[in-house]
């Protein structure tokens, strides 16, 4: 057997678990920092957010953090009795945890918003949606920012 191929195979075999372990230990997978958690808890108003129904669409790799397109939509019939009341976006590593909040109602027809945001660092973005019954749904997205929004002027 070719020695080079063998050692490469060995590297793959031993390297793969290390890679998986490394990915799972990435800081982005950790709980959000306290100020982001506080802002999200304040928005949720004591309700535990559930995953699902919220779709957060943001590019996973951002070249310019000064203007990042973001779309958030929520599955909802948007009727008088069952609609999305508010959507909030939170940052883990910008100078402030709040990004924007959107107030919606049945007259929107669809819970769908698109905007452009600033990102000061590689981080995780959270979208929380408060429904008309008071329940809260959540989604998050990790992204890598190569050129952060310039705070140096």
């Amino acid at each position, binding site marked *: 057997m070719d020695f080079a191929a063998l050692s490469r195979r060995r590297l793959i075999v031993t390297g793969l678990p290390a890679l998986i372990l490394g990915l799972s230990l990435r800081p982005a997978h950790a709980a959000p920092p306290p100020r982001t958690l506080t802002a999200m808890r304040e928005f949720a108003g004591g309700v535990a957010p559930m995953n699902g129904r919220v779709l957060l669409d943001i590019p996973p790799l951002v070249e310019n953090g*000064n*203007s*990042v397109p973001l779309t958030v939509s929520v599955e909802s019939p948007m009727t008088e009795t069952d609609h999305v009341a508010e959507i909030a*976006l939170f*940052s883990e590593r*910008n*100078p*402030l945890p*709040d*990004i*924007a*909040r*959107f*107030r*919606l*109602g*049945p*007259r*929107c*027809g*669809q819970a*769908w*918003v*698109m*905007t*452009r*945001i*600033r*990102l000061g660092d590689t981080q995780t973005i959270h979208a929380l949606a408060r429904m008309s019954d008071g329940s809260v749904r959540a989604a998050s997205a990790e992204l890598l920012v190569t050129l952060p929004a310039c*705070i*140096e*002027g």
Partner: protein
Amino acid sequence: MSRALIHVPPRARAGEIIEIRTLVQHPMETGFRPLPEGGFVPRLILRRFECIYDGAVVFAAELHPAVAANPYIAFRLRATRSGGILFRWIDDQGAVREERAGIEVI
């Protein structure tokens, strides 16, 4: 006066869901940008956005410094009645900027 671009479909069927796109010229000065002589460029951002249609605020937004300069906000509305749609932006100092568009509902 800053420029604002509004896209509203000129006509829609009653009950149809339409997409509204808004872009307004504004630096959205975050207050985190240091000055060469020390201190920071004072914060001045558009803090609130409202869309008023058929007698009510149908969509509103609270903006923070993390919203990019020249804020772009797109959203959807159910077309209910022909008439004007009013768009309003309010900055940190309370200055109000308004823009209008019309829609014909058939």
